[in-house]
């Protein structure tokens, strides 16, 4: 029976390699990185990964999910490294023993975008908390990702800091869509609603309509990304050595330089800050 199982497995692997020419060769020096849709959509990986491979020989396979989902995937041991942006969730992840340690690597910022007409008048102040309060005051439509992503958690923290209580069930102006940044933006533009988004996704978003950036630069909109290696003690199948190599590269001067060098439409999206005090 053991032999038959091995045969089945061999057949499947052959099948897999027959389908993807790179599969078999790549399998050995590859890792799975669970990251967020916003990071993926920004195009950072398209720029970064070939450089990682050139430097370390590691083939990185990025599975892009929301932060919550990414961490859950890692909890199941299905990823080797997580690359997300939600401090509280990350710390919990490490505390649970699924990850070894948080390594802050870079940051970008969130921006509040909305219709050019700006009915809530948030454009006038660069204070995000005041802006949110104004939106709440006038009950202007606001779209939330509602998907436990890093962006979503950041948004919730901001509401809390602004002293505003939001209940999606009751507040009709607050629309929790439970989807990624792209769909959320689509919905926001279509319904003339305010929405909090990361700058990178906004820059590359194709469907802006009349929307524009209304609030930016507030330090509270700072968005820290970290790398965490999945704990090989807890998940023996983790490719710990390769995963650590990947992390080390991104934290190294060469990797940090790569991150800074990535530009979209002439703008730098991510600012490397490995080694700075953890945010």
């Amino acid at each position: 029976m053991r032999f038959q199982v091995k045969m089945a497995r061999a057949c499947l692997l052959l099948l897999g390699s027959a389908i993807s020419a790179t599969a078999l060769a790549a399998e050995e020096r590859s890792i799975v990185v669970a990251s967020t849709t916003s990071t993926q959509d920004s195009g950072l990986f398209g720029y970064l990964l070939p450089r990682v491979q050139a430097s370390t020989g590691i083939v990185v396979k990025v599975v892009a999910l929301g932060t919550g989902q990414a961490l859950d995937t890692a909890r199941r041991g299905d990823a080797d490294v997580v690359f997300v942006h939600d401090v509280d969730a990350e710390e919990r992840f490490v505390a649970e023993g699924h990850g070894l340690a948080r390594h802050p690597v870079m940051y970008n910022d969130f921006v509040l975008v909305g219709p050019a007409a700006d009915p809530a008048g948030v454009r006038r102040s660069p204070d995000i908390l005041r802006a949110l309060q104004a939106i709440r005051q006038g009950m202007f439509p606001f779209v939330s990702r509602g998907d436990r992503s890093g962006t979503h958690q950041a948004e919730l923290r901001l509401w809390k800091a602004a002293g505003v209580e939001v209940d999606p069930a009751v507040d009709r102006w607050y629309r929790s869509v439970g989807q990624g940044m792209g769909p959320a933006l689509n919905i926001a533009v279509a319904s003339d609603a305010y929405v909090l988004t990361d700058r990178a996704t906004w820059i590359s978003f194709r469907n802006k309509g009349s929307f524009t950036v209304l609030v930016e630069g507030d330090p509270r909109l700072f968005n820290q990304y970290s790398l965490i290696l999945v704990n090989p003690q807890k998940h023996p199948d983790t490719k710990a050595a390769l995963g650590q190599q990947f992390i080390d590269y991104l934290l190294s001067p060469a990797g940090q330089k790569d991150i800074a060098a990535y530009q979209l439409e002439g703008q730098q999206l991510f600012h490397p800050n490995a080694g700075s005090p953890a945010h």
Partner: protein
Amino acid sequence: MTGEESALGLVFGGDPALFAIVRLSLSVSLGATVLAALLGAPLGALLALSRFPGRQAIVVALNALMGLPPVVIGLAVYLLLSRSGPLGSWGLLFTPTAMVITQTMLVLPIIAALTRQIVEDLWLEYRDELAAMGVGPLRRVRTLLWDARFSLVTAVLAGFGRAAAEVGSILIVGGNIEGFTRTMTTAIALETSKGNLPLAMGLGMILLCIVLAVNVAAWGVRQFGTRFEH
């Protein structure tokens, strides 16, 4: 696939990333369809020719499985292949193989159920003559499958259509990883979610053309097959 290149530009410019995506889509869907046909057609034929208590229940169940929601299969396969699942050590999660497995499971009931219907109908015609010739059960299956070949091709192409259009399950088990498990359908889903609608539409057109070509081929096969009809 970022940037403002239009889809047409990519197609006619021979963008390698696009070709990789199309090639993967076809490999996965064709691979799954072939596997499902190899397993499902004989299964359907056997079911058509056998009589045992509870057979009717199985036929009904098989027909029902044709409408299985793909995401459910995707989830089930994901849990199987996850490193924390029973088959985790096989390392198949987030690979094209996992996608083929999932799609095979989706297409198999379709091919089996359609084959059962086709063979059962043919059996009514063939029963007497094959009995008179003393044809044994195994040969019966082969005879009917061969004589029904043109209808079966249609069934197989129906299965392929289902596989090629599918996105939910392969998204879950494949992870939509750029360069590895990104197919046309998952790419369309991604580009749509990024608001990159022109590109998504372009990809959609290509997918449509492929499916259309497959259906034209099916029609051609059926036409050719009519020379063997009464």
